[in-house]
């Protein structure tokens, strides 16, 4: 079952299954390695709706989704 990335629990590997939204926003996340099928996990969530810290392979990212982009993921297993 796919859920929004921001709803995924912390430190749980997730596989990216869908990228929806503006083409430029999708391209930008893809350029940083968040392509379909890639595994990522949330290191920590932001305070007060702020961005989350994300790890995609060896890349550390600050990420906050908004109306122009939605990332759906599948949870793989508990860390």
């Amino acid at each position: 079952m796919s859920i929004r990335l921001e709803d995924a629990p912390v430190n749980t590997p997730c596989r990216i299954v869908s990228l929806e939204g503006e083409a430029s926003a999708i391209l930008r996340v893809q350029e940083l390695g968040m392509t379909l099928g890639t595994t990522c996990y949330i290191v920590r969530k932001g305070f007060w709706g702020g961005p989350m810290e994300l790890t995609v392979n060896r890349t550390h990212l600050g990420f906050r989704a908004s109306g122009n982009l939605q990332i759906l993921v599948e949870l793989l297993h508990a860390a």
Partner: protein
Amino acid sequence: MQPERTIAVVGTPNTGKSTLFNVLTGLQQRVGNYPGVTVEPLLGTVTQDGKRVQLIDLPGTYSLTSASEDERLTVDVLRGVHPTVPQPDAILFVMNASNPEKCLVLYSQLAALGLPILLCITMIDTVKAAGGGFDDIAMYHEFGVRILPVVGSKGLGIGDVKSALVSENDARIPTVVVAPESTIEERFTWARDVERRFWHHGSTDARTERLDRILLHPIFGTIIFVAVMVLFFQSIFWWASPLMDGIDAAMSAIRAGVVQSMGDTLLSSFVSNGLIAGVGSVIVFLPQILILNVFITILEECGYLARAAFLVDRFMGLFGLQGRSFIPLLGSFACAIPGIMSARIIPSYRDRMATIMATPFMTCSARLPVYALLISACIPATRLWGVLSVQGVVLTALYIAGALSGLLIALLLKRTMFKGGVVTFLMEFPPYRMPSWKSLWITVYNRSKDFLQTAGTVIVVFSVILWVLTALPRADIPANTPPLQAAQLQMEGSYAATVGKTIQPMFAPLGFDWKITLGVLSSYAARETFVSAMGQIYAADVSESDVPLRTVLHSAIPLATGLSILAFYVYALQCVSTMAIMKRETGSWKWPAIAFAMTFVLAYTASLLVFTIAK
């Protein structure tokens, strides 16, 4: 001797590309540790074995499908469609050994351009220290290009890179590793396969992980961020004051020396009150410029600025902006010019424009001497509740009023002219590293030089014009008139008085007399001119810390008028250089014109309100 060939230095952000460029060329340029810091193509020359090549350092990009303005520059140059920068003869591709995946994706696109490539792999010391490594010979066979491992910051492998750059045969047209029409997923699949086959990563970067656990923590990270910002702003006052006082005293001594040696002549007045007063009013800001730039550069280079943008993203979202907007806005507290230029790192056009329009409201270092002079002249040096300095509270309030107004203007623009929701925030965190002192020196030197050249030229020219207006026509003053009275008589009969008195009715509702009107008008070239203009107009010393000028202004400017002038300066866009850079970055005079009109209306209204309430 003309350079033989031009080679572009290309790579993703945070690969150590700019450090390598510095080491190769010896040229002075800025090295940043957050994505998009290199916003202009810099040129340098490499000489080796009697041969030369020209290097172009292009802004870092993740792909040839550009998103932000600075990345588009790289793509246009590489594709040979940039209007001013010619297509290079070859590419020096720089990739980060500790995180090769994204670099390889970009490489797969570059390989299809048909340009000869040299592949330089940086940060090999980091990989080796972590117990990792890579197979450069296997890569050479697969890619068909020469592989050059280096440690840019330590100069290791640089000789080989130089020899390869000047050699006509070392850069080769690479094997096309991925079909040109491949999707980005296919490119990542290839890159991950290459990384799996040729790379052995050691342990993870434990230092960065440990630091991020604290510095990105929702509570501790925020507290540390606030502490860093408090230190940032306090340093402007604490550390700059003694240096500014020293420069001030030196300028006063030089002026006194000029008057003493040349006598009370028209030429002496020109040199002392025109040239030296103008130059002095610029140089006195230098300590603040230095301190601000040292601070900002350290924050950039150690990797904290990207984290700061992350921490303030939610707050910036309240004003329709994103965390990336924080970087240009923070820079604008030093000077709006680099602030506006660094707005190029914001991929969203609407966010970028709203940020650019908000930057002039941040209290740049040029406003500080104006505030300092007026506060010391008009605000009593008493304490609030026996602890807080009233003058300090007023100064802090002016900073907050400017920043808050800028953010509210951004919000207004995002709701009207640049309508659009808050866009996705996405920023790569570079690993923490110690700032390079050489890079710090280069940055601070370049920014200080720019400040003195740009602002200095304008201020000196306007100071000389103002001197002509105040010194001519020469009044017929009796021989025994005391010097201050003589200066006042001269001023009353000067062209400056005529100009000031003609325009003054427009500013009368704000409590400005003709002298203040003239000072305010003169500062439309550059804000800091107000200080030297007041010095010239009131025939007293120029510096804001000079007691006679403060004393003269204290008796000449009532409290209500002083507050009214301060309110005017919080909002008014009084900087020719800022407007010129706005035009360049937005591509039209429309936006600086709108910014000028908007800030004037705000300044006039705020000043009128403050004067009406305070009187």
